[in-house]
Structures are given as structure tokens and as C-alpha cells.
């Protein structure tokens, strides 16, 4: 029944070692989002795809990249993780990119940086 699936649930990487987080969806939604959530804080939008159109937030570090090879899959690449990048990374989808639209979230990937 899972509609937005994130793998892995837990990821441990080393300082400076590239890491990729994945997200897949069975909803056929046009929009896919990546949020970063640090402990006890609200999710912070990193970027989103509207179909193939990539939209980066102004304050998202260059260290964070994303790929969306097709409608179903979206990847978050962290090129050189720092200790400050340890967080929960949440993928979400929505059918369209308008107000009132419900976001469907995955269960997240908890990233640890050693």
C-alpha cells in the first residue's frame, strides 16, 4: 500500500563521502519534493521537481543535488556530506503545484554522518 517509498530508512555515511538517497512513488504525481528535517525542527524544503522542471530553493547549498530520471523516481545526492547534514530527509509528492494541495510523504531516510 505504500505510495511514497524511501530507501534506505537509515543511512550512515562518512564525512565527505558522497551519498544518494532514493524516493519512488506509485501515485503518478507530477510534483516531487525533498525536505530536510533536523531534530525537533520543521521540514525545510530543499528543492522540487514539477515534472522535469527542477526548482531549487535559494538557500539550498550546492552540496545538495537532485535527479529525476522518470515520473516515479527521484534521487537526492549529497556530494560531500558534512556533520551538519545529518538529518531526516523526507520525500513528498503532490499531483499539482498549487495551494491547498495535499502532500504525500514517505517515511523518510535518517542520515547519520560520521
Amino acid at each position, binding site marked *: 500500500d505504500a505510495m*511514497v517509498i524511501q530507501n534506505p530508512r537509515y543511512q550512515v555515511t562518512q564525512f565527505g563521502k558522497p551519498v544518494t538517497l532514493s524516493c519512488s512513488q506509485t501515485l503518478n504525481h507530477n510534483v516531487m*519534493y525533498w525536505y530536510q528535517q533536523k531534530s*525537533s*525542527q*520543521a*521540514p*525545510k*524544503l530543499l528543492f*522540487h521537481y514539477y515534472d522535469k522542471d527542477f*526548482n531549487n530553493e535559494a538557500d539550498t547549498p550546492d552540496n545538495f543535488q537532485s535527479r529525476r530520471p522518470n515520473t516515479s523516481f527521484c534521487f537526492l545526492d549529497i556530494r560531500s556530506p558534512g556533520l551538519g547534514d545529518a538529518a531526516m530527509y*523526507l520525500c*513528498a509528492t503532490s499531483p499539482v*503545484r*498549487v*495551494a*491547498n494541495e*495535499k*502532500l504525500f*510523504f*514517505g*517515511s*523518510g531516510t*535518517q542520515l547519520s554522518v560520521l
Partner: protein
Amino acid sequence: TQLLEQSPQFLSIQEGENLTVYCNSSSVFSSLQWYRQEPGEGPVLLVTVVTGGEVKKLKRLTFQFGDARKDSSLHITAAQPGDTGLYLCAGGLQKLTFGTGTRLTIIP
């Protein structure tokens, strides 16, 4: 940037008590959403309020949208341990911005 401030940041109460959490902004929103997030999971949408002054009920949860559409509140009656979680308000046009969150703990 439209900012959403939530209060209180943390709230711990006994089972059976009532509580209200608030979501405030200096900006007008066309709508606001409320999500609940349990530990280790993604947020789940509870409700969307659209009209100024609107009140929506979801079992023991009552959501209200301010008349000026700048604020919203969530009232829980007779809180239960299952209500424990992080409550997030969210709003925005093409992209959703989350509020600062209220972490609620209900003590059995």
C-alpha cells in the same frame, strides 16, 4: 518569505486534558494545512482550512482558520496518548512552507 510561527514549541499534558496550539503569521494565506508527524515517520495531513473563520472538526480535533487568514488554531479535547506527535501547520502558494512545529506529549 511567508513565515509561520507555532506556539507553544513543546507541550506536555496529562491524558484527558484539553489543549490548544497556535499557528501565526504576518502574511495572508489562501489556505493552511495541519499535519501530524510521529517519530520516524513523514508528516500526515490532518486538515486543510480555506475560508477565513472556517472551523473544521476531526473527531476530538477542532481546527479554526482566522478571519483574516493569517492564523490558525488546533484544539484537542480529552487528549489521548495516541495524539502524541509533532504538529505542523503549513501554507504557501506553489510550495508548502512549514511552521516551526509544536511537539505534543500526552502522558498516560
